[in-house]
């Protein structure tokens, strides 16, 4: 072993260690920010390690430097700009976009190696070694392409650029996807047999497969898909690690792949969906429109903002249940003002955060933190559920399925078994909502029919602004 090899080995080892510590640290609120920086540092360290290794051994041609600099500057610049500009509410689609680009990168590497086999490393031709090489190239392309097209479709759907086309809900889609999958398998074997041109077939059909699998999935399930695709991009990176013979890539890719799978599992649990039904079941609303024939509301009580303000003023304990609708209306800051007023009046205010509130686990925490809500006031579902019977007023803001009592009471409901917030146990429930439209699941919400529930119709931000006005008139929070 010569010196550059030893140095690279040490740096790689250090980078893996720091990346692992980074991921570990990201799991605690206190250390998360430093851990993220640590991981970023580890990544730059790995680049330094790789470049110094090549400088010390084969040297790096000027031409290579030029292309390295061009690629780095453009990629980093766009990444940094997007990361600074994107609003917090669009976080899920941003992660999807970044993720897709990671997949694209793995795909391109494999494609490059496949078309122009790189010299070095394989001086003596070895059948076993070339087989491994071809398999890892194929895996890298297959997974990379699915990650890319799947993520782009997911992003487009979350942005509202793409709706779920009706035909994708029919059974035909399974047949189409199976055809794509079989075609990629054929291309794969053809490639191993030495037919290099079939690599293009592999690229095309696996891209189509990524689209075909993601397109039928409804908006509600998208976070799960993004998380799964995040896992895939790790797998694609690991496969690319086999292609260029880099342990560091394999370790880091495998870690991300495993992490993504765990996260996906957690999200599925929170939404009471199995991964299989997310991937192959199509959009949930399409399934349930047929089954929920009893979807008529019989006992809706609507009330004015003024009544709502009066009830709030008399309360001792208030629980806020924020949902994605709040984020869409960009009303988290207005909400914070309302709760500030209530707190000044000595009313205890707590936010009940369902595990999948917002559009990703933890998304709502980020949005509320952005509005300066103290971290201690955010309570997780299991912690807050026993508190509802002792609560005077619950404000449901843009949440729907996560407060549907059907999930507990009605075994025929598609929601049955999903963990929900027991808001109906509280004395009074106000649901602030634009209209009677159903939630993501498309299922009727029994909560709205209950006698202690009142609907306040209107845009969340406008209602909250009116509420501030009413509270002011009542002299709440002014001393």
């Amino acid at each position, binding site marked *: 072993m010569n010196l550059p090899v030893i140095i690279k080995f040490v740096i790689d080892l250090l980078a893996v260690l720091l990346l692992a510590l980074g991921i570990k640290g990201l799991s605690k609120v206190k250390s*998360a920010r430093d851990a993220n920086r640590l991981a970023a540092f580890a990544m730059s360290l790995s680049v330094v390690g790789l470049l110094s290794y090549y400088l010390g051994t*084969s040297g790096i041609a000027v031409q290579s430097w030029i292309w390295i600099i061009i690629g780095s500057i453009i990629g980093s610049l766009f990444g940094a700009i997007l990361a600074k500009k994107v609003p917090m509410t669009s976080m899920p689609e941003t992660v999807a976009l970044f*993720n897709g680009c990671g997949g694209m990168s793995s795909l391109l590497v494999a494609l490059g190696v496949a078309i122009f086999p790189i010299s070095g490393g394989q001086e003596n031709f070895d059948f076993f070694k070339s087989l491994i090489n071809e398999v890892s190239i194929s895996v890298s392309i297959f997974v990379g392409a699915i990650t890319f097209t799947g993520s782009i479709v997911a992003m487009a759907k979350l942005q509202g650029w793409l709706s779920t086309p009706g035909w994708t809900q029919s059974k035909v889609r399974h047949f189409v996807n199976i055809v794509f999958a079989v075609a990629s398998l054929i291309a794969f074997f053809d490639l191993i047999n030495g037919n290099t041109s079939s690599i293009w077939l592999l690229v095309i059909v696996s891209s189509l497969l990524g689209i075909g699998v993601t397109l039928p999935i409804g908006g509600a399930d998208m976070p799960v898909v993004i998380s799964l695709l995040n896992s895939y991009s790790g797998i694609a990176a690991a496969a690319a690690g086999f292609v260029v013979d880099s342990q560091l890539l394999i370790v880091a890719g495998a870690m991300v792949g495993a992490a*993504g799978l765990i996260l996906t599992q957690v999200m599925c649990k929170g939404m009471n969906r199995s991964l299989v039904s997310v991937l192959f079941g199509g959009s949930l609303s399409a399934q349930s429109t047929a089954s929920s024939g009893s979807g008529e509301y019989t006992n809706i009580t609507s009330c004015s903002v003024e009544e709502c303000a009066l009830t709030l003023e008399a309360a001792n304990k208030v629980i806020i249940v924020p949902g994605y609708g709040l984020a869409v209306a960009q009303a988290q800051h207005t909400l914070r003002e309302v709760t500030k007023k209530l707190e000044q009046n000595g009313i205890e205010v707590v936010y009940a955060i369902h595990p999948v509130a917002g559009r990703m686990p933890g998304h709502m925490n980020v949005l509320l933190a952005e509005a300066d809500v103290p971290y201690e006031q955010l309570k997780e579902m299991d912690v807050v559920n026993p508190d509802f019977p002792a609560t005077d007023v619950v404000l449901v803001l843009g949440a729907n399925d996560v407060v549907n009592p059907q999930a507990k009471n009605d075994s025929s409901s598609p929601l049955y078994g999903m963990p929900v917030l027991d808001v109906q146990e509280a004395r009074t429930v106000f649901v602030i909502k634009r209209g009677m439209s159903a939630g993501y699941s498309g299922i009727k919400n029994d909560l709205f029919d209950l006698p202690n529930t009142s609907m306040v119709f209107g845009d969340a931000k406008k209602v909250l602004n009116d509420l501030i006005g009413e509270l002011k008139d009542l002299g709440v929070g002014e001393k």
Partner: protein
Amino acid sequence: MSFISLLWVLLLGSLLGLELIGKVPPTLHTPLMSGANAISGITMLAALTLIVKAEGNVPLLIIGSVSLGFALFNVVGGFFVTDRMLAMFSRKPSNKK
């Protein structure tokens, strides 16, 4: 590296990933996902290798450079956006004036 030892690396890496993520509060799932996502941009190393080993092959250089660009877009964007999210969590002591 022999293929078998690379497989070991893959296996141990996966186990490490499973173990590391096991106990995360839901609060941090979105930042964690975005942080992990940034790490998956580690393919930038593969892209760099490709460029260094291209030996003047211009199409390969271009493919490598584009790949590097995509990977860095993922890495830089991912870490920045994660930092932005986490900055909001750590800001909380300041608003208790």
